[in-house]
């Protein structure tokens, strides 16, 4: 009808930058919008950890001290595991559906993809951790000496670590089958060695040395610090920094696995 040039025709797209806030937020919003079309996944992510804590409380009905220690550790482990699973599958789908290739052929920075995912799942992790922590503290009588906010902080960092590991591992999985199998491969050894089942200094020296370099050990250690001390101890600060550092490191590795050119 009209012969006038439409405004889109002349507008050059903004150039690619390593990290662009609007593009990162758009990506995070898109990931959350995708999840909103899948309410069952959201329900599972939020409710399963609560259910497990509830179960655990009555498994250790006779020994509330054991529940305190295991419960606090699990508050850190649950977000890590769920976020690991959800992120690895979600990114794998992005890789196999061709949308990642399309995005990387567009002016989108790799950092935007990674940060967008981390932001979206981090938000979900906050809700999940808040629910689980609230339930444990107020309904299941988890006896914590320190502040509930510190518990939440560690849980959030664990969730970020899980997101980072999931992103990284998805690069090595060719199918959803493989991605799910990475869960026992990456998470279970950490679960066994993190001090949940027995204090780490009781382990064989070789295993103790291995557990010293696994990030989950520090996640659990941090939770136990909050459990036993009223204020922030030096050990707690060290644990938090190590978990955060690991998460950032693995996120960086994850960004390196996103290739614009593939064979």
């Amino acid at each position: 009808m009209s012969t006038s040039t439409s405004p889109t025709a002349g507008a050059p797209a903004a150039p690619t930058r390593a990290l662009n806030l609007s593009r990162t937020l758009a990506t995070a919003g898109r990931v959350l919008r995708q999840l909103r079309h899948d309410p069952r996944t959201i329900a599972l992510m939020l409710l399963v950890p609560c259910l497990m804590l509830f179960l655990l409380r009555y498994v250790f009905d006779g020994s509330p001290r054991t529940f305190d220690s295991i419960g606090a550790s699990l508050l850190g482990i649950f977000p890590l595991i769920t976020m690991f699973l959800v992120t690895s599958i979600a990114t794998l789908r992005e890789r196999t559906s061709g949308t990642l290739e399309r995005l990387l052929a567009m002016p989108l920075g790799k950092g935007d993809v990674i940060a967008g995912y981390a932001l979206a799942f981090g938000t979900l992790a906050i809700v999940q951790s808040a629910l689980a922590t609230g339930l444990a503290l107020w309904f299941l009588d988890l006896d914590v000496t320190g502040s509930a906010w510190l518990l939440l902080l560690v849980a959030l960092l664990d969730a970020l670590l899980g997101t980072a590991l999931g992103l990284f591992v998805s690069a090595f999985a060719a199918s959803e089958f493989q991605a799910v199998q990475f869960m026992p491969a990456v998470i279970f050894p950490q679960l066994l060695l993190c001090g949940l089942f027995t204090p780490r200094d009781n382990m064989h020296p070789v295993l103790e040395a291995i557990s010293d370099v696994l990030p989950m050990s520090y996640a659990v250690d941090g939770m136990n610090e909050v459990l036993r001390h009223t204020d922030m101890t030096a050990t707690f600060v060290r644990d938090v920094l190590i978990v955060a550092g690991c998460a950032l490191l693995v996120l960086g590795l994850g960004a390196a696995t996103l290739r614009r050119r593939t064979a």
Partner: protein
Amino acid sequence: MMNYSSGPLHRPEPDPPAVRAQDLTVVRGSRAVLRNLGFTVPRGQITGLLGPSGCGKSTLMRSIVGTQAKVTGTLDVLGRPAGHPSLRARIGYVTQAPSVYDDLTVRQNLEYFAAILHPGRAAAGLRRESVTRAIADVDLTSHADALAGNLSGGQRSRVSLAVALLGTPELLVLDEPTVGLDPVLRRDLWQLFHDIAAERGTTLLVSSHVMDEAERCHRLLLMRAGELLADDTPDALRDRTGADTVEAAFLHLVDAAIAAGRTEETTS
């Protein structure tokens, strides 16, 4: 019907061709999938890339878009080496399998990709307009709020095409955009391609393994087994081979290539 920009782009200097390839070779694994290709794709026209499946069409398209690894030789796109960051906003690329988010609606898909091309709050109006136009271009306005995963195969590939139309790219690379579509839709899409070329001055590179689509292109690149058999207009191809259709011309060229290969073997 729609708000197209008026006429092809007018620039003071002659533009470099949309694509210029010289000695282009691509290796996948230990096999050379493309061998020493040399051709140019002129601007503002529809160039068809034809050949049997597996002949390297998709690899060539991925090389032009800059997503293919292990590309050697010269490959300039819109005057820059292929894969140059400044090209990402100037090329629209549609892969063979529709690459859209199945768990988002058509509009949500386009809104996200538009936000990548034109980020920021200031561009919100621009985004809304280009999303609405792209949906109208591919005739999906009545399905704008349907989940992409619930659409038919042909509709999903049109959503994928709409994404590529978003930023009004200078070069559109379409990998088998009409495969699996009914005749009416195929005709409409080809009409859209011609409108885009004529009214927006866009260069289109369209691959197909259906030879009757070749007649709808301004120029043709005929490929077979990683090599270029011909780079010409449909009319010139038919004249040169004395064939009635492009399909017959293609078969003639294939036979000639095989015969040439045999004599080479016997002489060496």
